[in-house]
């Protein structure tokens, strides 16, 4: 039973990818298919960021070690969806038109922070193996705190790309803020 849990989480995490693949092949993306893919992969990246950040608070509140066991897998799905999202933009939307892409990255602050978030994900993905954990020891933990910065950048990206007051970006912003606040060790602060 327990051994099935992790594979099921894997399949569930891959489900959005299967769904968008199905939609692409069966032409179910509506009038603006490229935008639909961009938005879909972007939103799932953010959802997986939130899920990844929820694991250690969940462990604290429930004292199940299970949450920590799936944390790394969820983190890798963040990278997976973020990369699909980036590839949609670079390959499908802008057809490797590097002039326009670099122009966007430099001039549009929402693309800039999105790109920065993706870059920061790379070292985390590379060092996600068990071997790297043993190799880097305490530094691994320090390095992987980058996910906090990634979460903030991802949330800013969503706020800045929205045209007017949207509810969704603010909801994600609030969720991420709460998840980050849960990490502040208040005991330490007040006991000082």
């Amino acid at each position, binding site marked *: 039973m327990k051994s099935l849990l992790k594979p099921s989480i894997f399949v569930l995490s891959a489900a959005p990818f299967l769904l968008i693949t199905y939609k*692409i092949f069966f*032409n179910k*993306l*509506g*009038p*603006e*298919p*490229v*935008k639909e*893919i961009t938005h879909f992969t972007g939103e799932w990246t953010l959802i997986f960021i939130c899920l990844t950040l929820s694991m250690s608070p969940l462990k604290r509140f429930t004292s199940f070690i299970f949450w920590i066991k799936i944390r790394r897998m969820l983190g890798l799905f963040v990278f997976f969806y973020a990369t699909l999202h980036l590839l949609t933009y670079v390959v*499908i*939307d*802008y*057809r490797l038109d590097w002039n*326009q892409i670099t*122009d*966007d990255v430099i*001039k*549009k*602050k*929402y693309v800039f922070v999105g790109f920065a978030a993706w870059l920061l994900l790379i070292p985390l993905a590379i060092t996600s193996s068990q071997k790297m954990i043993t190799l880097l020891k305490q530094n691994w933990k320090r390095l992987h705190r980058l996910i906090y910065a990634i979460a903030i950048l991802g949330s800013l990206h969503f706020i*800045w*790309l929205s*045209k*007017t*007051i*949207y509810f969704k970006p603010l909801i994600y912003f609030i969720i991420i803020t709460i998840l980050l606040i849960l990490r502040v060790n208040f005991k330490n602060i007040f006991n000082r």
Partner: protein
Amino acid sequence: MKKFKYSEITPESIFKNRRKFIKNLGLSASSLFFGQNLITSANANTKKENMKLTEYRYVTTYNNYYEFGTGKSDPVERSQKFETKPWDIIIDGEVENPITISMEEITQMFPSEERIYKLRCVEGWSMIIPWLGFPLNKLLKKVSPTNKAKFVKFTSILDPEQMIGQRFPILDWPYKEGLRIDEAMHDLTILVTGLYGKKLPNQNGAPLRLMVPWKYGFKSSKAIVNIKLVEKMPISSWMKASPNEYGFYSNVNPGVSHPRWSQATERVIGEGIISPRIPTTMFNGYGDEVASLYDGMDLKKYF
């Protein structure tokens, strides 16, 4: 300027339907305006496939109409019960004869003609739509603007009961837009009462909306209740929301990019993921007709 006949850019089936429609109305084809505005020199190189009319189902289900919500499908889903009868439009301000005119009177006084225009949204997509309407200048001439009338301010309906989006401070409701008087008097500027040979659907701005083809789509107000001629430049709802992103003029201009969307290219609605973006043209391709309105103006400054 290269001229295309409607038949050249219309899918056969739709064209046939249109002929039937014309017959039903008892109009002669020559009384219709054959989309001569669609293609200008800048666009002439683009392949003809790009001139296809956007399918009716996309024109009527993919809309930006924040009064009904910010999602693209919100307008079609939430506007079907919107009451457009009775509907009066007040035309006042710097005019000699201010009037209040009903939609019935408008349709009687101003026979509609068909105009195929390209609609370019500031978000970087475009559609090609066969509108039914009449030049705004015909209506404005009826009220005789005074020489103080330098601008025209359009106000859309305020009705939060029926328009759920207006219950939230997304924009400064009611929706306000404006044109300079010469832009408003230009022959390409039309008031729209229908599309695809049908009555204007609610989600597209029924019963009366504006269409200014060389400007980004948000300049073309929907569900208009007041047209006021004024001396000072009106502040539009979008200018108020974000003055450094939305200027008063908002002419389609590939050289001035919006902080969020590159304006150099656009996606054609209804094309699959295989089709590339197409280059955006100055004044949305209507430069031959309208560029002279802006002679000597720095359009980077007056965006």
